[in-house]
């Protein structure tokens, strides 16, 4: 089994850090180029899904347990909503980022960063959670094997 998949394993090990780096780039460069929290979350989740496909779901669960992905899932929405509550506490309207910084533009910048980060977290958490849920049920005998779990 190890010998069979050696190419896949090596290539995946090379690719996964690059995929994660690209996800972070998409996340934080979304203000300037195409992309944003949603795409970044998906790409970040893809890194873990690729890992799970090649090295087995059980190994992947060790690197990022389901409890962590579920926490990410909820925390992202919380960050988004929390940003809204924070702007209300600071005297603005819900999700009015102007009050977050010293100038409206700085506030907008910080607000967008926080909100996009929340979106990214939720999407990444959701994708990995859904994948884990499907993969946890799969038998090893159909279209493709999800790792060496069973």
């Amino acid at each position, binding site marked *: 089994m190890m010998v069979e998949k050696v190419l896949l394993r090596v290539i995946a090990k090379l690719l996964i850090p690059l995929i994660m780096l690209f996800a972070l780039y*998409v996340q934080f460069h*979304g*203000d*300037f*180029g*195409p*992309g*944003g929290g*949603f*795409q970044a979350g*998906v*790409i970040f*989740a*893809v890194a873990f*899904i690729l890992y799970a*496909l090649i090295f087995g779901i059980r190994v992947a*669960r060790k690197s990022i*347990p*389901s*409890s962590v992905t579920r926490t990410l*899932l*909820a925390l*992202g*929405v919380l960050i*988004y*909503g929390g940003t*809204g509550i924070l702007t209300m506490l600071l005297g603005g309207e*819900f*999700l009015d*980022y102007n009050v977050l910084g010293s100038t*409206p*533009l700085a506030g*907008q*910048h910080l*607000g*967008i960063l926080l*909100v*996009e980060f*929340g*979106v990214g977290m*939720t*999407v990444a*958490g*959701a*994708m990995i*959670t*859904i*994948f*884990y*849920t*499907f*993969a*946890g*049920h*799969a*038998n090893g005998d*159909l*279209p*493709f094997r*999800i790792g060496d779990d069973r």
Partner: protein
Amino acid sequence: MAGTAYWLVKLRNLFAVVMLSGIYSLIAAVLYVVMDAVDVAFTEAAVGAGISTVLMLGTLALTTDQEKVHKKPPVLALVLVLATGGVLVYGTFDMPRYGDINAPIHQHVANRYIEKSGAEVGPPNIVTSILASYRGYDTLGETAVVFTAAIGVLVIIGRSKGGVMPGSTAARRRRKDKDRAPDQPSTASSDLDEEASS
């Protein structure tokens, strides 16, 4: 694109269908790039061609990879699809030409976004300004939808037969118990195997 769609309908092997739908999404992404909607193309390529293909394959692993063939032609469904498609095509007759400057969509809030978003919000990517700032409520709703989808999957198929979620603390504890005290039949069979090999 039409060819891909045709084979999507025609093929009975669902594995091929999933692969084709991934290809379809990639072609759609290229189409969006041609129309200058880079953000949408990005999402289409990442979600449509990437994640959903993997999730579909995961679903196939749970079910089967052959489509059931119905004996009777589904007349009612065909009528319904044709009627809906007809209404949608009829609706496009009223749409302004692609890129028409006088189209309502270019006369409403788009001008304000293009002219003032740099001063009001900041980011050079106007799409980000609109999604995260002007339409902050909508994006909050979208995030909630993604959250709800994941929760829904967890609630519906998140529990295995034993009533515990795979990967949860309870499942891990159960697996540990199993490792510590392997059940009788499996040890018996392994004993037999050893005897047979020796």
